[in-house]
């Protein structure tokens, strides 16, 4: 038997990019996120970028198996998990905030970061928008 989760107060600000706030029990959670983060010194975007798979986004990640030979016994002397309050600012990128019990959780995230800086000799490329500071 799973325990009862009791939270008196939850204060959270933002849930973004496929994040979930689950209040109550669930059975299976599968969270996946693939991120290609490109930072350029200038505001430039050529259409159709990043459509070819990067190895970090495609390579299979080996999964750790739970050996069937281990027999787990849980003795819940207290049937409740009590929390007075939770203050959470943000949940992002397929993350889960779960108040309640579950059975199987499977999560996988893949992030590829690329930063492009200008060559100091090269002239500044033409950008669509230019923001200048007053004065």
């Amino acid at each position, binding site marked *: 038997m799973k325990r009862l989760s009791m939270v008196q107060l939850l204060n959270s600000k933002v849930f973004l990019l496929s994040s979930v706030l689950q209040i109550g029990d669930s059975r299976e959670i599968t*969270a996946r996120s693939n991120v290609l983060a490109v930072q350029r010194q200038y505001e430039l975007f050529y259409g159709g970028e990043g459509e070819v798979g990067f190895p970090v986004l495609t390579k299979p990640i080996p999964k750790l198996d739970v050996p069937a030979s281990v027999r787990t016994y849980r003795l819940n*002397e207290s049937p409740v998990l009590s929390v007075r309050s939770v203050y959470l600012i943000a949940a992002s990128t397929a993350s889960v905030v779960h108040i309640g019990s579950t059975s199987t959780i499977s999560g996988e995230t893949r992030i590829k970061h690329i930063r492009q800086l200008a060559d100091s000799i090269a002239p500044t490329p033409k950008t669509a928008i230019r923001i200048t500071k007053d004065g």
Partner: protein
Amino acid sequence: MNYTVVNREIQIGDIYLTAVTSSSIFLIGDADIINLASAFDTPPESLIIGPFVPLTPKGS
């Protein structure tokens, strides 16, 4: 192999969290199996200094 867990009373006060991200889980409750994996790639060659060329254009 037998593995016995005795869960006695748990009473938590206040939890302060900034962020939960990248397929991670913040769980108040029980779970049987948790399997989380993460791959993060920022190699030196991720930092490109030079001409602003498109990365891996379509069809290459």
